[in-house]
């Protein structure tokens, strides 16, 4: 039904009977995000919407200095080596991708001349290739022209394992060919509904061939330009001290009219989030501070100073509690949480469902996340088009208790429920982080009331998120019953996010815990939904598969979604900054300006 309706809606947009915005809203209502809705239109024969720029200044420059405060400063400026978003943010000041994402998830052109669509021949109907036309006349900061060779080079550079680029996953399975000096074609080995990954967004910014060609492969780390970028962006590189400061100045040859607004640019690193919020919101020493993970009452108090404000961007980041489907306390062949075991308590679905009833998401929002969170019943919370409307959540200690009673878990002498000699005692771990410890306390309290004993554990983030297979506390090993964190969603498409939990990807000793399915969830139905989605070119059907996959995860209580988290930034009151929940903070920097 959804499919038929969508077809007719696409038809309406095509003939102009329905406007694009209404279409996106309709799709959002059935749970599809804006970027996806746009891609649906593109595949349905209507060109993808170009993000509308709100940029007002009518001349280049004259805006003075823009002072950015990144409390974790960039430590290197090559997007292919970015170990974290901070490095992508810093690189993006100077380097540019073909296109970026605006706050609504629409594509905005940067180095590309037009958005590929079926009409303009950019998209192949079978979804196996996409052709990008490049903007003519773009120059690197050193005056050399930007051409298709540069784009092709980035693919060759990244896919070479010896380069050890972190972008390798984007490029290793595609083929990029030069059609002419200003046209490149990307060939996929299978139908690819989400074609806007390679060369799109800050992580996939393009570096110049003429400066990096000699440093491809094993010599990559010797490239002098790893620390002194020569890009195509609105600001030219001046100075970089890792972790401390990045400085740039206006690029007089920038390829977008009247941009950039600011004459100089400074990105200062170091310190902590609270004092960064203070420097922007309260004292106004800086214009913009990124990733202000600070309690809402602190922000509200700082905002009374009146020099700046907190701003929010909606993306798809979900804070969740994952349940372990294997037994963390039994060792089989030197491996705990082995696939050969079953979780003694969670193998009863009633226990999992009861736990979901015991997470008071409203309280977590009210007490901890404030304006930076939304309650949710879904694991997949964005883009809008992929968000399920079939799920719901509630917090009820009575219902949870009754559910456990009915399943035969009766309170023992110590008030803790037990069945067949097994006590409902759970170990609940997460990384050390203020909001997470508070959430743990809220959940523990509710569980206690329902007769479940919860032991809390918190691990230093640098260990918890480590890939060090020798450490027992890393999250993929999951030597606990429940664990809580979030996996950032770095592009407006759920494919990477959802395929992690396919049966083939379970984390085991054999794959050195590199399998991404850490709850060790095995469900054929889920696998089928994901495989179907990945081969589906029809955007509506594809979205339906992902919604189904989400619903399976929720119905089976693989994850208990705790909060849909928004990005929080601090900005001066007079700064007009464009921030997208689907992109890095600096991705739309060319559109930033100051209001008088």
């Amino acid at each position, binding site marked *: 039904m959804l499919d038929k309706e969508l077809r007719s809606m696409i038809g309406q947009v095509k003939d102009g009977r329905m406007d694009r915005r209404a279409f996106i809203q309709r799709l959002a209502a059935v749970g599809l995000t804006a970027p996806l809705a746009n891609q649906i239109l593109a595949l349905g024969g209507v060109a993808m919407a170009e993000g509308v720029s709100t940029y007002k200044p009518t001349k280049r420059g004259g805006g003075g200095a823009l002072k950015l405060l990144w409390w974790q400063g960039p430590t290197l400026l090559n997007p292919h080596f970015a170990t974290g978003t901070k490095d992508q943010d810093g690189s993006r000041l100077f380097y540019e991708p073909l296109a970026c994402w605006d706050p609504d998830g629409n594509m905005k052109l940067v180095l590309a001349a037009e958005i590929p669509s079926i009409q303009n021949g950019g998209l192949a109907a079978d979804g196996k290739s996409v052709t990008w036309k490049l903007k003519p006349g773009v120059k690197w900061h050193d005056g050399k022209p930007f051409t298709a060779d540069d784009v092709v080079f980035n693919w060759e550079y990244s896919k070479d394992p010896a380069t050890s680029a972190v972008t390798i996953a984007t490029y290793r399975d595609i083929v990029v060919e030069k059609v002419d000096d200003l046209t490149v074609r990307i060939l996929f080995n299978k139908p690819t509904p989400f074609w806007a990954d390679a060369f799109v967004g800050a992580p996939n910014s393009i570096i110049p061939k003429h400066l990096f060609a000699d440093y491809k492969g094993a010599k990559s780390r010797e490239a002098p330009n790893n620390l002194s970028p020569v890009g195509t962006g609105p600001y030219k590189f001046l100075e970089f001290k*890792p*972790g401390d*400061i990045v400085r740039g100045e206006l690029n007089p040859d920038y390829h977008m009219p009247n941009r950039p607004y600011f004459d100089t640019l400074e990105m200062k690193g*170091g310190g902590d989030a609270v004092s960064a919020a203070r420097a922007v919101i309260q004292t106004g*020493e800086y214009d913009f501070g990124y990733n202000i993970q600070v309690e809402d009452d602190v922000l509200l108090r700082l905002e009374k100073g009146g020099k700046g404000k907190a701003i929010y961007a909606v993306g798809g980041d979900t804070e969740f509690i994952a349940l372990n489907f294997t037994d963390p306390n039994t060792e089989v062949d030197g491996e705990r949480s082995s696939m050969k075991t079953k979780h003694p308590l969670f193998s009863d679905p009633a226990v999992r469902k009861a736990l979901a009833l015991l997470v008071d998401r409203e309280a977590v929002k009210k007490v901890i996340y404030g304006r930076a969170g939304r309650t949710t019943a879904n694991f997949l919370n964005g883009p809008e088009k992929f968000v399920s409307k079939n799920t719901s959540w509630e917090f009820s200690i009575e219902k949870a208790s009754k559910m456990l009673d009915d399943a035969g878990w009766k309170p023992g002498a110590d008030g803790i429920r037990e069945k067949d000699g097994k006590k409902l005692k759970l170990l609940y771990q997460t990384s050390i982080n203020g909001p997470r410890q508070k959430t743990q306390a809220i959940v523990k309290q509710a569980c206690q009331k329902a007769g479940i004993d919860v032991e809390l554990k918190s691990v230093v983030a640098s260990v918890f998120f480590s*890939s*060090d297979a020798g450490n027992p506390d890393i999250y993929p090993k999951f030597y606990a019953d429940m664990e809580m964190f979030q996996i950032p969603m770095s592009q407006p498409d759920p494919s990477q996010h959802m395929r992690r939990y396919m049966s083939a990807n379970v984390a085991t000793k054999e794959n050195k815990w590199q399998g991404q399915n850490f709850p060790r969830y095995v469900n054929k139905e889920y696998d089928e939904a994901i495989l179907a989605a990945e081969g589906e070119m029809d955007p509506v059907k594809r979205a339906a598969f992902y919604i189904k996959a989400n619903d399976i995860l929720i119905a089976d209580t693989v994850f208990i979604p705790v909060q849909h988290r928004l990005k929080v930034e601090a900005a001066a009151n007079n700064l007009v900054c464009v921030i997208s929940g689907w992109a890095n903070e600096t991705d739309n920097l060319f559109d930033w300006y100051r209001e008088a």
Partner: protein
Amino acid sequence: MSQYVLRRLLIAIPSLLGISLVLFVVLALAPGDPFSELATNPNVPPEVAAALRAKFGLDDPIYLRYLHWLSAMAHGDWGFSFVSRMNVDALILQRLPATLYVIGSAQILALLIAIPVGVYAATKPYSLFDQIANVLAFVGFSLPTFFTGILFILIFSVTLDWLPFVYSSDIKATGIRWVLEMIRQAIMPVAVLGLFQAASMTRFVRSAMLDVIRLDYVTTARAKGLGQAKVIVKHVMRNAMIPVVTLIALQMPAVFGGAIVTEQIFRIPGIGSLLISSILSNDTPVVMAVTFVFACLVVLFNLIADVLYGWLDPRISLR
């Protein structure tokens, strides 16, 4: 003299080797991974992090890694930062000026306060001035720098709005304005560190002075009819300064330690904040290098203290 210095330097080598071994083993055994941020990024397959670990030799046994580090160090190669992908020595040299500027100024401030106050308090023990100086000194060294730092920020930046609390390593001004800005932004961190140092030093100067001031030769000097100023400066201070010099020299590494916290609070791009961010990102080569530099400083300042001894008190012969 030069023979003595040379011998001391040679003795320092085995102790530095021992220190480096301990540091290396502790860091290698510490949990954490420089590529942890990659682990939660769904865009990056786990093989990439594993390949990076292999490339930077993180999977080798500890003794091999230590020998690699040692032989590289012997060649003047300080190692390579995992996180910045640049040479560690370049990274440290970039950060050193800010640290030296702040710590140097703080130390000078501390001496400028401690010596006059300590000396004057000792000449009039248990006077009102002495009492006040004592109380302030106790307050000064009981308050940790992270507390006074935040207090200063709240008073002078947030409430009064006089001083900036984000230190900028390159000020966009020239000439006299540049100098003024450099001074302005350093006032708070230097005051925080300097006052902390001055507090304990004042107490020390005072007691060293009191020890000397009652000795017979001082009475003799007075009996000769020398003025109070001359007696204090020429006769008492010179002798009282001997233990003070040792204290200052031995405290230098502790000052660097205090600077780590202060640098973090005021965002001073010095080696202290480099150390903190490297520890947080598990960038072991940088942590190793910075801690090793600190170890070298301890050894060096011990040596300087001993040499200064000989200069201040010719009776102590260095052989």
